[in-house]
């Protein structure tokens, strides 16, 4: 499976974080709150659709009071993809000592 893109990963995690209330606008808000960056709703919807087509997400409609909404849920495939992305990230970071560099920078700036 092709590795997840950054936005894809963020959208998947946001779907998980919003727990059962993951419609497009809510997912956008969740990502904005965590990353602190503004995100266009169109990008979110396009990503959600692509993820559904890849079968990482499933969508269903709410029925009842209020406007009908398209709610998203992580599929087992999606969970696997997220786990793999996280593992890849961890492998990538393994043995990388960022602390030292950050300290060095601090030292340099103190010069």
């Amino acid at each position, binding site marked *: 499976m092709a590795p997840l893109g950054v936005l894809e990963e963020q959208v998947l995690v946001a779907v998980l974080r919003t727990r059962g209330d993951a419609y497009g*606008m809510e997912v956008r*808000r969740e990502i904005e709150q965590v990353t602190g960056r503004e995100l*266009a*709703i*169109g990008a979110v919807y*396009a990503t959600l*659709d692509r993820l559904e087509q890849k079968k990482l997400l499933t969508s269903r409609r709410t029925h009842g009071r209020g406007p009908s909404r*398209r709610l998203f849920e992580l599929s087992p495939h999606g969970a696997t993809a997220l786990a793999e992305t996280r593992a890849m990230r961890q492998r990538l970071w393994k043995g990388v000592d960022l602390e030292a560099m950050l300290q060095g920078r601090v030292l340099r700036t103190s010069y």
Partner: protein
Amino acid sequence: MPVRHAESNEVSPPRLPLALLRRLLPRAERDEVLADIRTEYVDIAAEHGLATARRWLWRQALGSAPALLGWNWWRGWTGFEPRANAYRPGGPMIKSWITDARYAVRRLRARPTYTILSILTLALGIGGTAAVFGVARPLLFDPLPYSHAGEVVTFWMPYWWNEEEYTYLRDKYTGFRDVAMEEPGDVTMQAGDGPVRLLPGRVVTANMFDVLGARPLLGRGFRSGDDQQGAEPVAVLSHGLWKELGGSESIIGQRITLDGTPRTIVGVMPRGFWFPDPTTRIWTTQPINPQGRNGNWQFIGRVAPGVDPQKMQPYVDHLMSVLRDRFQYSTKGDKTHDGRFIPIRETLLGSMRPAVVATFAAMGLILLIACANVAALMLGQVEGRNTELAVRSALGASRGRLTQQVVVEALVIGLGAALLGALLAATGFRILATSLPLGAWGENASFDWTMFAVALVIALAAVLLVVLVPAASLWRGELRGTMNSARMGGIQGRGGRLEQGLVVMQVALAMLIVSGAALLVHSVTKLYAIDPGVNTKAIAVVDVLSSSDGTAAMRRQKIDEVAAALAAMPGVQSAAATAKLPLRGSGNSFGIVIEGRESQERTITYFRVVTNDYFRTMGIKVLAGRTFDNSDRMNDSGGTVVINEALARKYFPGEDPIGRRVRGGLTGSWQIIGVVENVAEGDLTDDPEPARYYSDQQVNWLGPVATFVVRTGRDGDAATMLDQFRGTVNRVAPGFAVQETTTMSRVLDLAVGPARQIMTLLTLLSVLALTLGAVGIYGVIAHFAARRKRDWAIRVALGLPTSRVIRHIVAQGTALVTAGIVLGVLGAVVLTRVLASFLYETGRLDPVAFAAACALLLVIGIVAAFVPAHRASTVDPALVLREQ
């Protein structure tokens, strides 16, 4: 409220970015997204002020645009439609399908010939296949109403076993949990003062229902002991009979009079239970006689736990050796060879399977031919629309989109065909059920609504098949190029390979059906050529059930009175009665002993009781001596007997049998007074069997059933006077119940058997296949000729004789038909295997039948090609050339 209204006005978002978003969002999700954006806008405005909110909205709209554009393109490209939006109107996919459906309906309405022809053709195939499925389902697919039916098997030589064998083998079976037996046991039932009725029934051993694993709905099944000497006579009713008798639970324990004997009803079987066929209405037991040698029983066993019903040969061998040790068999009825256990499904339904499979196959082939026809029609439509499609394509319609249109058009046709087909199935079902040789199954087949669902599924499959062809042409064709060629007037006729392929396929499929029909026609003709020994013309048949009360002498008198009354009717030459009509199965057989040759091996012969005029009425020739007259009376030492030629040849080779005496079956010795020609006493194709005829003046009628035969002056009268004969029987003998009235030629038809019925059906289907095939050939050749019209016109204008045009086009058609025939013959060689069991003295690859089928198809193919060829040759070239 007014304040709030003012407030909401104040924060209403700017229109332009919203309009942009509205344009870009897919319809299905547009409203919810816009509503969310408005909410968010209001929230931001409340928190950070209007200006921030406006800037945010603009950023959202412009920032979303590339993503949404990409998204729209991607959705259109992949056709991806989220599940959540599947049923929402206005989604991009649904919308185009709806548009296409409306367009298709408009187009179809504007072309009624094409529409009606396609729907009718497809409906014939769909309806026929659905009807055959309805008939075939209980026989091929439904489970038997017995628990673990796979463990139940029947023994070899069905209805040849006797009670002595059953009693002897009782504790000697290995590999079986239990073995039961059954024989036909129709009983008469008289309720109150009404006429007697004959109930189709079976005599079974007490363990039969346990072996079958069937439980009664009410009361109990039979108990061990019910079939012992001295047991109380009991009966178990079918669900249908129970309903007919009132359907009350209190029926258990009540008594009914069957065959003049009161029996206690002990149980009622559940709805849906049948054994051994659905017409059986009552099961009775009778005391098993350990010495009983009357061999009319069938053995049915349930294999022991852990025994594989597929691997029973060692048990068969064991059983045969046990039988060999104990019994001496004459060649007929020898059970010590070729033994095998037969799965019960095969025993009960197996004989009908080939008929059903053959019809199913033929119907499926017709469906395929219909599909090919409709596909060719649609192809013609697509090619006729070439210019339109090219313009659409030039304007940006993708091929997928154009294909979608064709698919939708096919779906609309398919839906129409499914509805019409379901109606056809509903009407054709009954005809099919009775015209197939299904016996009790045909009578009991019932229409159910699943057939509509089946019709729909078949239609869908057919549509998918049909649409492949025009779709392939769309994808292969060079649409843009068509516009140029349209301007040029279509001088170069394209090959039309797809259409030609369709014609070849149709001819091949038709060949399969026609060759099957031809084989059966050939075989059935041979069957009809057999001389049954009786006159089958101008003879009416009336089966009666004589009441069982009164003495045997009273019954005989009544039968004689009825025969005399029938003979006295105007237009009747003579009338007689017999206990068993020829051509209707074996009937009674008894052992025979020739006096003076008592040591000879005991063998059996057919045994018939007839009235004196029987031979004259049936047209059975007397070869030597005489037949019965009123001087023949029984005395203390015996009476007189008439034998047939087969008996004379077997027991008196080279001697004169007249005056000799025989014994067996009856007390006393019987003097042979005459020899008559052989008659097909059992089945039509049997070899001549020895038979003895006794006069009812000297011998009692054997059972309650008697058959009157009436010879009329004219052949047609036999059929038209049946009601009058019935009336005479009712008037002279009110206690007799008329079971059936028919004619001897109809009896012969039935004796010819399943082959005749399948032949009729396959012949009808052949006509259908040939008609559809001819229409297909005609359509394709006509299309081919029309496309090259300009081509021909130029050549004719330059001096080509029109006969050459005809010859060329017919040759084209003939080549296609020949290719189809060759393919068809190859297929038929494999497929006619299904019919093998119906063929009598006709090889499965009978050259006469195959040659006839090929010739027929070739002639029809040439005629179908000649019509458009002739038309093409008569076209005025000047007109054609001026056309464009």
